[in-house]
């Protein structure tokens, strides 16, 4: 990488922050009462994964990993939409059962 060098400790601290956020999302996915909570935490996990890919690319000076981030953003969007559809259909079914 021929640009500005980032200090390694800064990237390490940032990775620790990202891990804290994703761990909070995992806790919410474990205890979350409804399925929507778990999907929200899946979204947080995907955003954390893309952040971690970018930070590792900065840390290792590997610009190739930026392509991974592009693919991960698009796949994460499709996954979130699909999971949201899943929750909606499930909710309709339970509502029809209750009425």
């Amino acid at each position, binding site marked *: *990488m021929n640009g500005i060098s980032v200090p390694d400790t800064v990237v390490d601290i940032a990775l620790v922050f990202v891990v804290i956020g994703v761990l*909070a999302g995992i806790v919410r996915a474990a205890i979350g009462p409804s399925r929507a909570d778990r999907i929200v935490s899946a979204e947080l996990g995907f*955003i954390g994964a893309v952040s971690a890919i970018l930070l590792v690319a900065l840390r290792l000076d590997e*610009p190739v990993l930026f392509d991974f981030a592009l693919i991960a953003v698009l796949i994460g969007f499709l996954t979130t939409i699909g999971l*949201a559809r899943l929750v909606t259909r499930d909710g309709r079914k339970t509502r029809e059962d209750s009425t």
Partner: protein
Amino acid sequence: MIGSIIVSILVLFGAGLVALAGLGILRLPDPLTRASAVSKAAALGLLLIIAAAIIADWSLRSVLVLVLVLIAHLVTVPLSGLALARASYRSGTARSPVTTVDEPAEQGRSTG
């Protein structure tokens, strides 16, 4: 040197916003507010990290790829946040008493 400081600040703010979204997903009372916390805080956090990577790796190929990532992220995050909120509203999950605004019901559409 000054560029290194700017990139460090951007990276730390971005990762701190992801951690803040984790705090929000733990502390907020119902799925609607949690989806709001994730889609705002984490979206801005990832945006700052992408901006830091653009500044840090100033070559044509990396900047092109990262601008594509930026555009894809900016377009998709509000859509997925809206889909999540709609899904959790339609599935009828319990709303906290703190969440008082209910615009779909005010407009007479009970399913959102």
